[in-house]
């Protein structure tokens, strides 16, 4: 890996944060509520806990090969053919996630703000902006993600405004949905909390010691989990159980009710911030896809891959930007996320331990 293009541990923190906080922020409480009812927030917490396990596994795996990305070390562990196969799967997964993020974004913007604008227009604009950033090296992308993280303050402000409307009794009795439903609910949150798999590629590009890398990734995941859980609690204490089944984007509805002296409809402004978070997620995934793809065709720079993938992703995301496709693909990606976040890294780690493959000093 090119030693010069490296990021600091803080930049890694914000990169993971921006990758995790994305389109899901608006509809996550609703989706989890469908399965787990009022205990959805427990599901989100549970997902956060699973994420911490995934982080530990990925971190253990990566720290065995401190100079290499997944594309480089998977052939070392399981041989060239299976290694390449795993790489292709990851690239496909990232590509699908990127496309799904864009699709969800397009469908929500069509519902909330621009019903008459063809989704193609936004798809092209967003992809163009993304290409403009993503063709640069990791340093510039990380700088941008750090900058965009200032907007997360907007989410905090929402909590402050919502305070007086909340009814905590809606949450009680805690855990009444049953463990099974809470567990199944946590599966729904996987797509929204995914993002830590960035570490598989970013580990060698980060200049920090081993422990610091684990700390920042775990910290980022924890931050997002806490934020989402709070948001879910906010929604569940604002809407009654019946109402929640009718609002697929409860967070915006909730914000819509906030009335200020200077701004009437805060949701419109929140939607603009949400666009930022969605686009940064899209950027991260397109970057990871292009990194993996560039490794597969063995090119020096990922620039060419970014242009090609950008051209491919526009028609795909426009085609899938409707409720049925999003539903189907969302379920597939949520399951695939479990495989790519836990199963594959765990498998690679196990094989690496058995075959005693490691390239660090210790």
């Amino acid at each position, binding site marked *: 890996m090119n030693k010069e293009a490296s990021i600091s541990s*803080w930049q890694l923190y914000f990169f993971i944060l921006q990758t995790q906080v994305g389109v899901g922020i608006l509809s996550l409480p609703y989706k989890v509520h469908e399965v787990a009812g009022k205990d959805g927030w427990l599901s989100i917490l549970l997902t956060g806990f699973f994420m911490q396990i995934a982080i530990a596994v990925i971190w253990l795996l990566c720290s065995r090969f401190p100079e290499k990305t997944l594309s480089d070390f998977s052939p070392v562990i399981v041989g060239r053919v299976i290694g390449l196969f795993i790489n292709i799967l990851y690239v496909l997964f990232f590509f699908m996630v990127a496309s799904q993020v864009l699709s969800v974004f397009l469908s929500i913007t069509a519902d909330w703000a*621009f019903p008459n604008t063809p989704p193609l227009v*936004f798809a092209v604009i967003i992809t163009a902006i993304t290409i403009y*950033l993503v063709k640069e090296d990791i340093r510039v992308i990380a*700088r*941008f993600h750090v900058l965009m993280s200032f907007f997360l303050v907007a989410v905090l402000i929402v909590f402050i405004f919502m305070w007086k409307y909340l009814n905590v009794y809606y949450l009680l009795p805690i855990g009444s949905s049953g463990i099974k439903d809470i567990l199944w609910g946590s599966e729904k949150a996987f797509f929204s909390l995914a993002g830590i798999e960035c570490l598989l590629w970013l580990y060698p590009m980060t200049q920090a010691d081993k422990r610091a890398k684990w700390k920042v990734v775990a910290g980022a995941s924890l931050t997002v989990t806490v934020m989402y859980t709070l948001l879910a609690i906010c929604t569940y204490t604002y809407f009654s159980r019946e109402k929640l089944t009718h609002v697929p984007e409860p967070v915006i509805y909730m914000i819509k009710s906030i009335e200020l002296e200077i701004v*009437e409809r805060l949701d419109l*402004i929140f939607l*603009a911030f949400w*666009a930022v978070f969605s686009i940064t997620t899209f950027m991260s995934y397109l970057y990871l896809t292009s990194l993996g793809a560039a490794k597969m065709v063995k090119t020096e720079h990922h620039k060419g891959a970014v242009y090609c993938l950008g051209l491919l992703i526009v028609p795909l995301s426009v085609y899938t930007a409707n409720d049925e496709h999003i539903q189907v693909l969302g379920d597939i990606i949520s399951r695939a996320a479990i495989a790519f976040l836990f199963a594959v890294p765990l498998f690679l780690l196990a094989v690496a331990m058995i075959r005693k493959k490691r390239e660090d000093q210790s």
Partner: protein
Amino acid sequence: MPFWRQDENGVFPASADESAKMIEAIATHSSDIKKRSFSFGKTEGIVLYIETMIEASKIEERILQPLKEQASKKPEDALMVLDYEEALSKEEALKGLITGKTLLFIEGSRTCLLCGTQKNTLRTITEPLNEKVVRGPHDGFVENIETNIFFIRKRVESKGLTVEYMEKGSRAGSLMAIIYEKDIANPELVKRMKQRLETIDVEMVFDSGQIEELIEDSTLSPFPQLLNTERPDRVAANLMEGRIAILNDGSPTCLLAPVSFFSFYQSPDDYTARSVTGSFYRIIRLFSFFFAILLPAFYISVVSFHSEIVPRDLILQLQGSVEQVPYPPLIEALFMELTIELIREAGIRLPSPIGQTIGIVGGLVIGDAVVGAGLVSNFTVIVVALTAISSYVVPSTEMNAAIRLLRFPFMIVASLFGFFGIVFAMMILLIHLCKLTSLGMPYFSPLAPLRWKDLKDTFVRRTWWKLKKRPYDSKPQVMEKDSEARQWVDK
């Protein structure tokens, strides 16, 4: 018979007259090249000079008079000029002639002496018109490079201050100087700057703007990547932070690099004023950046897309005002913005008393009449006026131009996509700022890459004793300042 050194191998003929004619022949026969023969003791001599470049009294008092009075001495000893050298070739002699030196030929010597007798015309030193400060020094650079370096040296009386001259211009040469504090500036950056300057070539350097364009990292970016200033105190402060200054003869503008975006928002006033007030005005200035770029775009998107956002009490007035106007908000706002640009451009070119009149006619009369005629709504006029005011807050002409240019694309995307358009445009702008470099250093530092420690001299100006370190964006050799600014402790 010459009694001083006789150089048989000299490039010039032994006869002074022939030597002078030789130079005259390769110089164009310009009418202001003058020749005068004179004799001192038993020897004949000739002085050759360009009349318009020299000071006559200097030749009379420092060359002719001493030579005549001390005819027995060697001319080198008799001459009363400090700047004096021997030309080793015809070309060197010619160049000396062109730059205003007097050529002295002495019969039989085969040499040509170059004596500095240039005329120096200085404009009076005034405070730069576009960089006024309330408190602090009021002197500014002039068009003469030596005077400008004197200003800088006078302020930074340090052994590390290094001035390196460089000649630029293949046909009409002019002098340039790279100035840096050797013990602070990063040698890597100094090397990079020198390398860039050495590898540019123009026929003639006519202003620092030309140099700026040739050495900056990204020419097509709207943002200036070199800070230019006419204030010696600003240059001195930047040199102490490890930046590199470039001066060129004939221009009162000094270029500074590497700089960050936020350098353009700092005024010497911040440092002379009290820390709290300085911080307040700096925040106002940074706020003005967003205001100037976003306000018209925000207005357009509210009127065309998101009128729900306006509080109930205001919406009736807004509606009443906007509904009477036949044009879409973008056309309205563009019309007013372009009018402001016209007024500005006219105001600059006209002599100052008329310029003010144009401002009044443009601002008051057009503004009032245009609303009365129903072409533009009241709110648009307010928005455009506020935008114009906030775009002139930034203490740098280049940055101010960049801002005024940037608000047009923002207005267009806002009219197409409302808030989303603004978000898209803002993202592109920020990505651009993240990518941009100044002399290879990140331009949007200390925000991207984020450095908390440098933020205390970015958004606010903390007290002097808290500013213990130099900013990181110029990668100085010594980060720590030498001394503790406030050492006393009250018992």
